[in-house]
Structure formats: C-alpha cells, structure tokens
C-alpha cells in the first residue's frame, strides 16, 4: 500500500494529462459513476452529512489496524471527489490519516469543491474522516 502522499502524487500526475476543465470534470463524473456504493444499511442519518447543495454519506470500517471507507452522495461530481478522497484515505492507518492534508486538491483544479462555503458536504466529510481516525486511534492506544 502506498502512503497517502504517494497516492496524492499519483492523482496529481494523472490529472496533469487533462487539457481543459471539461476533460477533468468528465473524468470526475466517470469516477463518480464507478464509486462503489455504500451499503444501504449504512445510509442512515448518523452517517449523513447534510450540505445545502448535496448530501454525503460516509461509513468507516477498521480492519487489521487500517481504516476503510465507503461513501455516497446524491450529486455525481461530489461523488467523484469522494472517490478521489477514498482512494487517498481508505486502507491507511488512523495515524497517517490524522497527519495528512488535502492540499493536492488545489493542484488538480478542484479547490472550489472543498471550500467551506460550498456547502456540498465535502469539507464535513473530511472532518468526519479525521474524527473517525482520531477515535479509532484513541481506541487502539
């Protein structure tokens, strides 16, 4: 398993081949469509992040000291960004997640989607992923 930093670099590299926003967004849309759906039983209110623009569900699972995430959104572009975030965070240790940042999103030209004022649920989703990591880390200690 590559480190969070390595995966982020891979993603930045992959995005560098796109020539314009349309290609970038088409890729995001395709990613969104391919995201494994969260199991319906986890699409509960306590897993729901209510944005004013789109809704996000995220569910964590701990296996062999690593955190795995499944997630969903009702908006496909939000879902595409979720797919990228899951690729970065899923399968990592709580400690690595706690110490990571999401600056790479700027580099792939999707910064606006992580703006706190965008109200699409993504900023809260990252917060939630970090809180899960902190809680699981606390349990491990």
């Amino acid at each position, binding site marked *: 398993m590559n480190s969070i930093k390595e995966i982020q670099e891979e993603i930045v590299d992959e995005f560098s081949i796109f020539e314009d*926003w349309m290609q970038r*967004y088409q890729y995001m849309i395709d990613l969104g469509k391919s995201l494994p759906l969260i199991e319906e039983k986890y699409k509960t209110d306590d897993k729901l992040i209510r944005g004013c*623009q789109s809704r996000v569900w995220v569910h964590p699972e701990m296996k062999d000291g690593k955190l795995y995430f499944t997630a969903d959104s009702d908006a496909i572009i939000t879902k595409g960004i979720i797919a990228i975030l899951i690729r970065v965070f899923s399968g990592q240790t709580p400690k690595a997640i706690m110490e990571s940042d999401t600056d790479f999103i700027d580099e792939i030209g999707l910064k606006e989607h992580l703006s706190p004022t965008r109200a699409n649920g993504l900023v809260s989703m990252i917060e939630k992923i970090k809180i899960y990591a902190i809680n699981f880390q606390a349990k491990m200690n």
Partner: protein
Amino acid sequence: MSKALEVQLDVEKIRSDYPILSRKVNGQPLIYFDNAATSQTPNQVVEAIVTYYHQHNANIHRGVHALSQEATDLYEQARKTLQKHFNAAKDKEIIFTAGTTHGINLVASGFGSFLTADDEVVVSAMEHHSNIVPWQLVCEKTGAQLKVIPITEKGEWDLTELDTLITEKTKIVFVNHVSNALGTINPVEKLIQKAHDCGAAILLDGAQAAPHLQIDLQQLDVDFYTVSGHKMCGPTGIGMLYGKEDWLNKLPPYQGGGEMIDQVTFEKTTYAPLPQKFEAGTPNICGAIAFAKAIDYLNEIGLDKIAAYEHELLEYATSQLLAIEGLKIYGTSAYKAAVISFNIEGIHPYDLGTLIDKMGIAIRTGHHCAQPIMDFYRIPGTARASFAFYNTKEEVDIFVEAVKKAKSMLS
C-alpha cells in the same frame, strides 16, 4: 435566427452602466443569471456611494455643522424618495433597515410582545427560511399557533381552506409577494382583504417583488411591507420596512440606543417619534442614499418597461429550456417574475450548476433557503436562473446551450 424581443429597451446602453458584466469568469464572458439573489450595481449607484464619502460623510441628526446637515438632508431625502416610489402616505412610515430579514424580525419581535397562546400566525408553504424562522421563534415564546397556507403543484397558493386558515384568532399574516424559489407573483390582494376582514395585520415580503413590479402601498392597503436594496440595484446592508403609522406606533422598539432615544433617566426612557424609534444607533446613511439613487435609476428606465422586458426574457427562456428533454420547471403559474427553477431528470442540480459555472454562467442551485417547497416537490433542490433587465436574449441562448452541454456530460 430568432426574432428580437419586442419590448424596446436600450440594453446595450444599460449594460455599459455595469462594468461587472464585461468581466470574464472561468475564461468565459460572465452571464449573470442570479439576480434573484442579488442584482448588480450600476455606476450611478457606485458614484453616489463615492460622492457621499468624498463630500458629505458625517453623522446625522445631531451635528450643527454643515457636513452633518448635508448628510442628514441626503438621508431624509432618500426616505422621501422611497416614500414616493412605494406611495406610502407619510415619510415617517418608511424605516431604513439592514434588509428584508431585518424588517421581518423587527415586526415578528414586536408582535412577540403581545401575542398570546390563543392567537394564530399564518404563513405560506412558499416562504423563504427568513420568513418562517422568526415566526417560529415568536410562536415558541408566546405559545401562539403557526398555520401554513399550502401550495399547489403549479406553485401557487391553495386558498380553498382560506376560511379555516385565517380566522378571528389570526393576529398576523406573513407571506411573500413574489416567491424567491418559484417566481410566482402571489395574489396578495385577496390575502390582505381576508386578513383585514378578520382584524389581523398583514406583512408582505417584497424582496422579490419590488425589483420587478411597481408597488403602490396605499392601494395595496398592506400593514407592513419589507424590501432589500441589493435586489434593486442598490448596495447590500440596506433595506426598507414600511409600516402603517398606527401599527408602527403600537410596536415596541426593536433595538435600543442612538437616534431612537428621546430622554433617558434611570427610571424611565422615552422613545423618539417615528421613524427614529426604529432606527437605533447610527444608521446605514450611505446605504440609504445609494438605495434611493438605485430607485431613481430604475425609475429612469421605467419599472413597467423593466417588467415587460423581463417577462419576454422569461417566456423566451422558458420555451427554450422546455425543449430540452427531461427538463422540468417548478413554478408554472401564469403569473411569474423572471425566475425559472428547474431540474433535469436524473441530474442533480449541484452537478448542473457546477458545470454551468465552468462555462461562465452564474445561476443558483440548492434549496434556495426554501426547504418546505423542495419537500413539497420531493426534490433535493433546483437550479434557478433569474433574469434582470440588463440580460439579453443572446445570453439566454448561450445559457440554454450550456445546459444542453452539461446534460450530455452528466448523462
């Protein structure tokens, strides 16, 4: 080539009043279709702001010096401009506020001081959150009941049960004149009559109506009316609350301090007469002057012409959009301001809005702070395009193409 709009408006000249309309967004010429959220500000209004700060800036109503007198005169002249424009009986019935929400809270808070558990407050299911929450707070505090006028599939009030909704128990009715989420121009005259027949007061939220319609407050015979400057080509942070003199005298002051005070001792403070009673602290002097300038500007173009031109844009855009397969418009009343709320089957409004923004077009997506409406239609939100008199048919064409492009990317 489609034919030109029939209403004659020198849009090219009008557009030159708005430098922002020449800028680019995401590398594309800006098309601004979020006018229901805030309108753009013409040079004339910006110049009024600059002139105020360059020439007249001083606190009002208290200085004997020349600048203070000038600022006071301009501020009070602004009040008169609004009085005349909205045809209020007296200038003291015009209260400057921070905006529509402020006006609503002022009235709600005032009624909160005399409502009881036996009283009822009536709102509609078409309201903006700003219209629901202040009344919920008042009802929680006083025990009064909140009753809701339902809406129909077309996005109009369903008044079939009006006689059971507005009764002798009703103390205040509060509805929007034009819906921000759907664009419906509501038949407020009926409600004003009904409220008065039952001895209730009625407050109208005119935020979406005043930019498009000529409002005659005396003819409407409404008790309270509230608007925002920034939706009428004025600056943000300024609005108007109109109240009939009797009602404004009955309501207690909303905030304390500054101009609203007549005399203070520790035993008893007496309040200033209207309108200062409701203008605590140093008001938004410059905002009021600029707001009046915006109203002069709109009147120079002519609100009738503006309404007719916008209506043509609305009809044209509606027919073009409806030609897109799977596109549904919410709010299909025959009486609409230039607002189109829509969705495309299988596409989330956030996705649509995001891609359209990339093409330089500003529309609004989401629930438009009107969740009850979205719940009614069982949708998460809509995309909303709202037009102003400085928009053009060509912009509508580009927008419709952008919607088609976004649709093909998302399908």
